């Protein structure tokens, strides 16, 4: 499917990020994608009770907190997606018998919350200095009634879309790390969405590199 | 059977045959025996290349070998005399070699050394130049 996709006409929401937002966490980042804002804190490697330790790699614990108080199943679903992505990204084998806790706090939800949480988690992991195999970037896109792909849909486009697809790409050779979707879509729509999101993930990786360079030339 | 990778000092056979060397002979044989035994055990997994390849990459987990940092414990203006004594012990070497008061500047020294070498080769009478060495205590 080597359809040539030029990256000019891609629409990514403006992203703003800040490192070290929380002084007490080992690594923290606050990221705003468009109007959706998330705050992630990473603590680790920490010591944990015996029974939850594992010999060959560190135990990853992800906690997703919504703004409202009542914990719901949706949070557990988001936690499992984020844990599965971080499990492959973090070199857990370097910190055996220890625990890493990732806490995600939702501050504003105007669509694309999960992909904003994933990108913010990746930035917080970079800030915490934990060894990682690669960096990952989450892109969401919507398939509207007429079947064409809308990248990074706004709240209205998302609610009225036929399907919502989210992809997480890793930075080594842009392989698909995690994919989750809602709604129904055709096979070809899936293929095209995959390619467009993969091309758009470059923009996110360049954003990461820019943020890191902004902070490292100061330190 | 791959020879032992490391050249081991082996006693000559005749010495091993002697009566009093009996016990060491058995020990060496047992050693050889269990090395070969081991090799046979995993030979399908461990290839020779694995056994002989020495990695060129040395992983190093600490920054102290990368950036040459000064020692972490310091004391200034007589706060802790013991530490200051240790600091003076370690740093003078650098200072001396660093800004040692040189009455003869380096370039002049280099020029003289060249002249010295050429004169030595032409005259080939070493006696004249032994004198300075005797002076050195």
């Amino acid at each position: 499917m080597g359809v040539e996709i030029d990256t000019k006409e891609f629409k990514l929401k403006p992203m703003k990020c800040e490192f070290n937002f929380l002084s007490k966490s080992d690594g923290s980042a606050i990221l705003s994608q468009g109007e959706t804002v998330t705050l992630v804190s990473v603590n680790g490697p920490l010591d944990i009770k015996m029974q939850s330790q594992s010999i060959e790699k560190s135990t990853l614990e992800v906690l997703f907190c919504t703004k409202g108080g009542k914990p719901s199943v949706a949070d557990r679903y988001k936690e499992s997606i984020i844990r599965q992505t971080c499990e492959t990204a973090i070199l857990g084998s370097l910190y055996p018998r220890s625990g890493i806790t990732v806490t995600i706090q939702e501050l504003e939800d105007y669509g694309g919350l999960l992909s904003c949480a994933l990108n913010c988690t990746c930035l917080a992991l970079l800030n915490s200095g934990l060894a990682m195999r690669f960096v990952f970037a989450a892109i969401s896109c919507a398939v509207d009634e007429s079947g064409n792909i809308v990248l990074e849909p706004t709240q209205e486009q998302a609610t009225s879309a036929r399907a919502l697809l989210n992809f997480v790409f890793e930075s080594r050779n842009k392989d698909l790390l995690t994919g989750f979707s809602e709604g129904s879509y055709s096979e070809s729509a899936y293929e095209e969405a995959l390619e467009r999101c993969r091309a758009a993930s470059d923009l996110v990786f360049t954003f990461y590199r820019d943020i890191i360079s902004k902070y490292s030339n100061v330190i | 059977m791959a020879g032992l990778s490391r050249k081991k000092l082996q006693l000559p056979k005749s010495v091993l045959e002697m009566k009093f060397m009996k016990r060491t002979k058995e020990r060496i044989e047992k050693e050889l025996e269990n090395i070969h035994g081991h090799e046979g055990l995993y030979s399908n997994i461990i290839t020779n290349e694995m056994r002989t390849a020495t990695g060129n990459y040395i992983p190093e987990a600490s920054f102290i070998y990368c950036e040459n940092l000064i020692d972490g414990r310091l004391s200034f203006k007589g706060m802790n005399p013991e530490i200051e004594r240790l600091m003076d012990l370690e740093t003078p070497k650098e200072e001396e070699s660093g800004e040692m008061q040189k009455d003869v500047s380096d370039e002049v020294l280099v020029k003289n050394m060249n002249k010295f070498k050429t004169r030595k080769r032409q005259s080939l009478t070493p006696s004249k130049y032994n004198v300075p060495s005797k002076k050195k205590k």
Partner: protein
Amino acid sequence: MREVYLSNCEKGFLQKVISEGHRLDGRNYNESRKLEISFGSEYGSCIVSLGETKVLAQVSCEVVQPKQIRPNEGILYINVEISPMAAPQFEANRQTDLTVYLNRLLEKCYKDSKCIDLESLCIVVEEKVWSLRVDIKVLNHEGNLIECASIATLASLAHFKRPDVTRSGDKVIIHTLIEKDPIPTVLYHYPVCIAFAIFSNDILVSDPSFIEESVCTSSSEEGGNKGGILVVGMNQYKELCLLDLMGAAIYNSNLVHKALINAADRCKEIVDLVKKSIVNNDTLRQKRVKKNFSDIITTEHMLSLSKRDLSICLKNYNVDDIEMSQDEEMEDDEDQNPEPSKYDVVPSLPQTAEIIAQKGASSWIEISSGSEED
């Protein structure tokens, strides 16, 4: 709750610093850290940061059956949560005694003091009342959580607006925020909890930082513990609604008296700031400017870390002495690229006036009440 270790030299040095009239970060005894209140895009959600201590408060409402004993009153529910985000020593969804302590104090200060008019929350007596739920999330624990949490609770309650309700016969219609302007909660008075750390029983220190809190509540070797945390709940009319002491007993009464006087003017200051920030948040909303938590993301926090709010600081160390020229340079290159511009592939910048049709009171035109519920 993992162990937080405090070394003897930290305890000894801090006691010495406090007894000599100074404090570690250069503040004097009754000086508090910088207080910032920022509001989110929804009503009733705000982040309060007191120095580096940060707390998020979110108010939500729903219609419930009232209690039998109070058929005509709404319900207020306050819930404090401390996640591992606050500090590495906290474990996930684990009720520590700190959360119970905070919960209890906030309930005393906001429920028992009757600062909220619960009758105005009643829709149908004995059948339907509004239940307000305040969720407090500690984001960063740098000491004095109770003061930061109470300011967050007060600010979010004062900022919260519930949907309007019209009753016709036995039918009750709850209007969405767009149909009818939401109704602000009615607050009789604005109570705030102010915390003081007491050192060796005669020194009163306001807004203790994390290390000051742990040192004054730690038991020193030479017998017992002479420190403690005194929490004073007071409103802007100088009425006392809460007094709580943790740690050693106080035996000279003028200490409490001094604390009450300090608390009075500190509370006045806080309440004015809360009211002012709510007022200018409302004016911004009238002017249709999108206010959002993303505005708290700035690059100057990192610069301020290096200059203004150092955790160890001389009393009159101010950063402007460093030749101003350096500062300008630092600031200048920051302004040129406030945001990584090449990533704004979306033409409309959040701050521009162009407004995307959003929830909220601003767009009246094409909304039918069905499609846009909260």
